[in-house]
Structure formats: C-alpha cells, structure tokens
C-alpha cells in the first residue's frame, strides 16, 4: 500500500463519511421533528415528500436563501469565525469513529474507519473541548448581554460536564486497556458489552450519557439557548447560514455522542453476522447504524419528555452528584479490574 | 527523514523570546499572563524534543508537570486579575502600580 493509494483511499473514505454524516445530521433534524410531533400527538412534517422526508432539504434551501444580516456592533472577525469553529470541531470528531471492521474491495482491504489512532478516544475528548470556543466566542462576539450570558453559561456548562465525561470514560479504558476505539470494540466480543459489565459498566454508561447530553446542550441541559430563557442564547444575533451552521454543529455533536456510546458501551458493530462475505462485511455496519439510530431516538425522546434544569441546579448536579459518582465508579472499577481482570457478573 | 534537534530548540527559543517580549511590551495584564503561558509552551517543546533525542520518556512526564503547574498558576492568576479589576477598574498594568491595597 503505497502512499498514493493510501491517500486516495483515505480521501474516498473521508468524503463518504462526511456525506453520510451530513445526511444523518439533516435527517436527525427530520427525526426530531417527527418524533417530537408524535410525542405531542401531532404528525410533524408530512407535506414535503413522502412522510416529510424531504423537509430537511427544504430547510437547508431556506437557510441558504435567508437574508444574512450581521449587526454593526458585532466583533466582525470572531462573529464569522465562531460558527466555523463549532462546525469544524463537531465534524472532525467523526474521523476517529470506526463503524465496522475491515472491507476488501478488489486488492484493497481497509478498516471501515477514516483513521485508527491509538489515542482515538483522547482525540475525541480534545476536539469536544475545543468545541467550547465556538460557543464562547459566538456569545462574546455578538456583543449583546443575552448572547454573552448565554455564551458564558453554555461554555461553563460544557466545561464542568467535560470533566465528568472524561472520568466516566476511564472505566471503559480500564476494561479495554487502550485508547484506540477499534481496540475497545474488539474487547467487547461475545456480548461482553461494557454496558453489561454490571454494575460498574452500566453506571459509567449513564454518567457518560448524562454528561454527553450536557456537553451538547441538549434537553434537560439546553438552558443556554432555550427560547423562554435567554431568547436564543449565544446564537441570537446569528441568522440564516451561520445559524444553520450552529444547528449542524449541534446535531453533528449528537451523532458523535451516539456513535461513541454505541462503540464504548454497546459493542459498536458487533452483532450476529451471517450470509455471503459481502453481506458479512456489511452486516456490522448495519448493526452499528441500528444502535446509533436507537441513541438518536433516545436523544429526541428525552428532549421532549424531561423538563429543563435551572442553571444553579444544573451546575450543582454536575459538580456535586455526577462528578463524585464518576470518581467513585472509576475507583471501584480500578479495584475490581486490578483484583480480577476478567470477572463478568452477568454471564 | 530526520530533523536536526537544533531546529526544535530554535523554535522553542523563538517562542520563549516572543513570550518574554510580550511580557515586556504588552500593557494588558491578561496578555502579559498569556505571554507567560507562551513561554511555558516553548519550554515544553524543548522538553519533548530532548526527550525524543535521549529516548527518555521522563522528558514527557515533565511536560505534564509543567502543564499542571501552568493550569494551577493560570487559575490563581486569573482569580487575582479579577480581584485587581474589581478594585482598580482597569487592566492596564501601568496603572496598577500603587504599592498598597
């Protein structure tokens, strides 16, 4: 595999993944509107295409043609830069996510993953922490009190939950023994999913899930851009395309979180595989997509059922409840793993 | 293909000197504080470069400790800056020269 072939393959893979990601983002918007509607006993978008499937396309076109007005008092450069930062960070996180094991087309067999870094998980953490800049700078550069406050609250929330996110991942690492996501998945063969590593794995999963929701400013934790609170939080001053970018960044983050949770806790692409080799190589991807879809559904489901946290409750819960449990869990798993590395309570 | 060690050292030297210059020229306390962080980063780079050259991982360990200290310093420093701002209403370092509270 010379350098050139490697370059071509990786380019093809990255284009494919980005395309899939963007469509997934668009259709998660659709998913959200449909599910939220059905939760509220109404139909949601049905006019545009069968079951409203083309609604995201319509939204996209709408955003493109909308008037993009930038206020004079705005700190121009950062005002434009921040949505870009947000989107870039959200998308680069996908590069490390494996969504299936290897696939051989003709002479080339490549892992179904853009790149396999042995510090994969760390990179994801790094990227998410960089994501804070987009939000913070957006809030600040639009130069209005609401957006500033919204930006501050959002970044404060993301920072404080980032800590518990990181700590909740460490038990998974202890079980897997490596940062590389592919390695973690391979460790979860034969239904040894981390989720089933009762009780520590499950606890770790729930801590992860909650802090991930907070990271992406979703549902119970979406105070910063809640309409009733701070008008629209940090992206009040944004319109049209820049607003759409924030939207895309948010949903991209949701997708990343969903992928991560499946990989780390629900055994990624592992599932029963049968049929001819081509089918066998594609089935893991199907399993992976099913699990991701489930988590996306969970996102939407939680959003439209749970009430919103007040800001001090949110911070208190983050620091005084979530973080201690994450640490306790970490210590417990550490002890257990050190004591009996391969013990499984649920066989 | 290999890169001579001195290249890394020159880069860290430049970063360090920029940090020092920033410390001297800038008037905003926060910017001064940032130039200190820049100096620390320059040092980190030379740490890692030497670690790579001597094949001793302990060089990298030192980078972690530098980071920890930098984090602690940043936290306390910024708290102080906030406190100074609250009493002095200014961030210009030349006006913060009353040698008393």
């Amino acid at each position: 595999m010379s350098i050139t072939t490697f370059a071509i393959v990786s380019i093809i893979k990255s284009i494919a993944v980005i395309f899939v990601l963007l469509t997934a983002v668009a259709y998660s918007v659709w998913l959200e509107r449909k599910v939220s509607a059905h939760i509220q006993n109404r139909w949601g978008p049905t006019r545009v295409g069968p079951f409203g499937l083309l609604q995201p396309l319509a939204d996209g076109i709408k955003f493109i043609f909308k008037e993009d007005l930038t206020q004079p008092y705005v700190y121009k450069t950062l005002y434009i830069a921040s949505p870009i930062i947000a989107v870039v960070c959200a998308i680069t996180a996908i590069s490390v996510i494996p969504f299936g094991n290897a696939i051989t087309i003709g002479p080339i067999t490549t892992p179904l993953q853009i790149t396999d870094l042995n510090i994969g998980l760390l990179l994801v953490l790094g990227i998410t922490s960089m994501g804070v800049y987009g939000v913070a700078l957006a809030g600040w550069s639009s130069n209005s009190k609401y957006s500033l406050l919204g930006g501050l609250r959002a970044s404060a929330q993301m920072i404080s939950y980032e800590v518990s996110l990181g700590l909740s991942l460490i038990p998974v690492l202890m079980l897997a023994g490596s940062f590389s996501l592919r390695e973690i998945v391979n460790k979860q063969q034969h239904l040894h999913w981390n989720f089933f590593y009762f009780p520590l794995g499950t606890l770790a999963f729930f801590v992860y899930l909650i802090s991930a929701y907070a990271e992406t400013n979703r549902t119970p934790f979406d105070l910063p851009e809640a309409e009733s609170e701070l008008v629209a939080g940090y992206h009040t001053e944004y319109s049209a395309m820049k607003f759409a970018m924030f939207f895309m960044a948010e949903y991209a983050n949701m997708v990343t979180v969903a992928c991560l949770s499946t990989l780390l806790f629900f055994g990624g692409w592992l599932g029963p595989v049968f049929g001819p080799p081509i089918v066998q190589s594609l089935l893991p991807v199907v399993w992976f997509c099913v699990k991701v879809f489930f988590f996306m559904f969970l996102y939407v489901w939680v959003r439209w059922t749970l009430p919103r946290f007040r800001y001090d409750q949110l911070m208190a819960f983050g620091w005084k409840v979530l973080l201690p449990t994450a640490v306790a869990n970490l210590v417990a798993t550490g002890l257990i793993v050190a004591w009996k590395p391969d013990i499984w309570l649920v066989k | 293909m290999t890169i001579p060690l001195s290249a890394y050292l020159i880069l860290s030297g430049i970063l360090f000197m920029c940090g020092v210059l920033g410390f001297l020229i800038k008037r905003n306390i926060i910017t001064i504080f940032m130039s200190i962080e820049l100096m620390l980063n320059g040092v980190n780079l030379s740490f890692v470069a030497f670690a790579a050259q001597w094949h001793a991982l302990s060089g990298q360990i030192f980078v972690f400790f530098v980071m920890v200290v930098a984090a602690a310093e940043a936290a306390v420093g910024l708290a102080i800056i906030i406190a100074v701002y609250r009493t002095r209403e200014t961030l210009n370092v030349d006006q913060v020269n009353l040698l008393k509270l």
Partner: protein
Amino acid sequence: MTQNPYLWLIPVLPLAGAAINGVFGRQSSKKAISTIALVFPGVAFALALWIAARFSSAPAPYYFDLAHWIRAGNFQADFSFYLDQLSLVMLLVVTGVGFLIHIYSVGYMSEDDGYYRFMSYLNLFMFFMLTLVLAKNYLLMFIGWEGVGLASYLLIGFWFTKDSAAAAGKKAFIVNRIGDFGFLIALFLMIQHFGSLDFTRVFAAVQHLQPEVAGTGLLTSIGMLLMVGAAGKSAQIPLYVWLPDAMEGPTPVSALIHAATMVTAGVYMVARSHVIFERAPGALTVVAVIGTLTALFAATIGIAQTDIKKVLAYSTVSQLGYMFMACGVAAFSAGIFHLMTHAFFKGLLFLAAGSVIHAMGGEQDMRKMGGLRKKIPWTFWTMFMGTLAIAGIPGFSGFFSKDEILLATQRANTPLWILGVLTAGLTSFYMFRLLFLTFFGEQRFDEHHVHVHESPRSMVIPLVVLAILAVGGGWMAAPLLWGKANYFAEYLSPVFVANQEAPAAAAESAGGAGVLQALLGAPVIAGLVGLFLAWWFYIRSPEAPRKLAASLAALYKLLSGKYFIDELYAAVIVRPLVWISDRILWHVVDEGVIDGTVNGVARVSRESGDRLRHASTGNIRTYAAWILIGVVVFTSLLLWMVS
C-alpha cells in the same frame, strides 16, 4: 617548717571587726563600735604575742596552707601563710603600734559622725597589712599590697567632703598603682622564669640559678621592678609626692599608715626578697642611691615647712630613705631594726602632733603656735622623747638603728655615708626646729580664741607607751657598744642567712673599738650640731631665720615650694596626658573613629536604602525587565565560564 594552724586567724580577726563595724556600725552606739574596733585587733595582737612567746620552741619558719586558690597548669598560688623571724618582727610592730593607734583614735575621732566608718577602715587596713606581712607567696602579698593602698585611699579621703582630701586620696592611690605596675611586672617575670610565686620555691630557684642567666640582667630587672613597687608604696624619690598630701587624712591615719606600717611595706618586701637583690648587685646599688638621695632630698624640704604634719611627713620620707640605704648596702637587719624603731618614735611624733593639733583646736601651722610647754606637759615630754630618738642622740633608739645603718654604709661606700651623715644633721635640725617652734618661745596665738587643753587620757596613754618604746627600743642592739654581737641582728640572722659573712661579722671584730667610735662618730656630732643650730635660730635669736631666709630668698622659696616637683609632674605628665586624652582620644578616636563607624554604617544603609527605594516603582514591566537582565547576565556568565 612546722604547721601553725593559728596563723590565718591573725589577719582574719581585724577583717571580722571591719565587717561587723562596716555592716552594723550605722545603728550601733559609739561605745559598741569602739569596743569591737579594739577587741578584734587586740585579740590579734595577743595571738601574735602568744606566737612570739612560743616562737623559739618549734623550728623557725611556721607555715599554714589555708586553702587552694589558683591551679593553672604547673603555676600554683594558695592562701598560705608564712612566719619567720622577719615577719614576726613586722607582725609585732604592726599589731602593737596598730593597737595603740586604735586606742588613740577612739579618743581622737570620738566626736566625728563617720566614726564607725573610720574604725572599720582602720580594721580593714590592719587585715590587709597583716595579710601582706604573713603572706607565703608574692601573690597573697600583692593582695595585701593592693588592699593597703585601698585602705590608705579610704582613710586619706575619709573627710571626702573636703576636695583636697578627696584629691589627696586619689593621688595616693594612683601613685601607688604606678608603683604596683612595676611590682606586677616583676611578678610576671618570676612566674615566667621560676614558674611559681611561692617564696621558698622562688628563692630556691634563684639560689642555684646559673650566673650567665642571672648575668643577663633577669635578676637585676626583677630587682629594679621590685624597687619601683617599693618606691611607689614607701614614697621614694620618683613616687614620694603622695605622702605629704596624705596628711589631709586624720592624724591617727598618718601615724598608723604613713609612719608605722604601710610605708614600711616596701622595705619589708625588699628585705623579704633579699635573696634576689643579693645576686643582683646593680639593683642593690640603685636601691642604696635612691634611698640616700630621698633621705637628703626630703630632709632639705623638711627644713622649710611650716605645717607641723608636713614636716613629719618629709621626715618619714627621709627616714624611709635611710632604711632603703641600709637595704642597698645589704645591711637588711639594720634596715629592719631602723624600721622598728622608726615605727615607734615616728608613730609617737605623729600622735603627739595630733594631740597638739587637738589641743590647738585643729590649728596645724607652727607659726601660730609657741610656748605650749606649760599647757600640755604630757604631750611636750613625750614629743621631746620622740625628737631625741629621731635626732639620733645617743642613748635613744634612733641613735642605735641609724648609726648601725651609717656604720654599714661607711664600710660599703663612703660617698653615701657622707650624705647620710649630712641628712642626720638636717634631721635633728628640723626636728628640734619643730620642737622649739611649737613648745618654746612666746605664744603666737591669742588665748581666748584657742583655749589649749591637755588631751584626754585615752590619747595620752598610747603616747606614753610609745615614748617608752621609742626610748627602750634601741637597747636591743646596745650589746654592740661593748663588743658583744648585736642581739637584733643575731635574731634576724637565720632569715638573712645568705649574707652571714657580710657586715654583721665585721661588726663583731671591731666590737671594742666600736664603743668609743660610735659615741664620737660623725652622725652624733652632726646631730648635736643640728641641735645647736636649731637652738641658735629659734631660741636665741628668733628673727635670725627671717634674716637668713631673706638673704637666701631664692633657695628658701625653692625649699618651701618643695622643689616644685608637683608642678613639674603636672606639667610633664599630667597635663600632656589630659591633653592627649581630650584632644586625641576623645575627639579624634572616640568621636571620629568609633562613633564615625557606627553612625557611618547607619548612614550608609539609610542612604543606600533610600536610593534603592526608587527601584521599586510598582510597575510590573520594570520588574520584568530587571528579571530579564538578570537572567541574561547570569546565562552569559555561565556560558562564558563553561566555555
């Protein structure tokens, strides 16, 4: 060497008396004070007599080590006491005459309000004098030496309210200290070379010292330094100036200290270290010369004095000169004999002068006296006895002791002998001048101002006793006249065993001829001539002295001005010293150097602090720049050193 456990009691008893009087004196009555002041020295005197009585029973030198004092390496000095014939004589003189003077001063000082203080000082003086006399090593002797100096200072300056008394006390003490300086250096030399200060060990070391070491002037220098000490204490030529001023003190003090005991300490010390002086002929001649010169010099001044106590003071100086002359010609026993007789008649003369002053209500100037013969007969007769004794009239103690000295000097070296005889003449002249001025001629004071009265019994009794001693004291040496050996010299011979073969023997051979020659000897003639001249001047033609004084005005002024020695010392030593300490030591050294450095340091730190203050401007960027400069300098230094 027999152990005698009572030796240490003799000095301690007066100390106890002094302590009790000193502490409880203020609130106890005069009677109680005087009883204590008399009982303790009295017991000491009795103890001394008891020891003297049993003296011949045990082998001569008694010793008693009271306690260890200094143990420094091989140098050792203890509180140990030593008694041999010489110190027994001194002991008897000191305790005897001292006790008599104590009785006398009870009467003399009774109406003085500092009575208890005076008595305790006297006892204290007795304690120090006895330690000096009974010491077994030079260090203990030195304690006594200093103590006696202290006591004399206290007693001279007893009426400290009087400026002149206080000044005289200070002068006495300082001049003594100068003498002690020489004495100390002698002690150091002894320690250095003989390793000890104990008499027996030092003299043994000196005895078998090789000639070449002695030749190097070690012994001569020690001798000379000891002489300086003695000169200081016994008021010889260079350091005699303090004695005439010491007359400021009460008369018993002058009698006890400046006649009988303290001033003789120098002579005793020289006699005690005769072993050193004998092997240092140079030092011995110096002693002799100083002695003679002092004798002559003091006698000449004595002639022109008008104050009765000053005359006696100068006569004491001159008699001490005689004693040193005796020691100088190695006739130590003669010196000690004269010391003893002098203690008797000089003590008597002073006490008599005291009672005259007492009678005259404090008047001391002879020109205001005259014709007291009838009014105070007891004082007159006792004083007359004393004058006869001191003038060397045959039959009285002075004749025996002084002539023996002159006899020894005649044999040793004639020029000193001639001066000696001349001094003898002068002595008798000024003594009889004193006698005729005070007791004969017409009264030069008006009756109703000064009602002359005889002194109380407590003062007269000591006078009588001393008069008897002054007369009888000399007969101990009488056998010399008719050929037998001089009893006193023989008695002292074991102490001065070294020069056994020297003059004493010669005295024996010339036994027979000695009688007549002694009687008609030059000193007796000189004495009689002095008597006749005094009679001629002051009885026959009272105006003669005035005429003579007018004709020899310059000489007379010189003598009455005491050769202006005091002024000389003041000009040569005191004023330059004061100038130096004022101009240089005070302004230049003290203020300039010491204060200068201290204030300098303070000023430097303050100013540097002030200058540095400007460095801390509060501007953070300045600090940063300074830090950077520091870093750069250090790294360049480091690199420069490394490369």
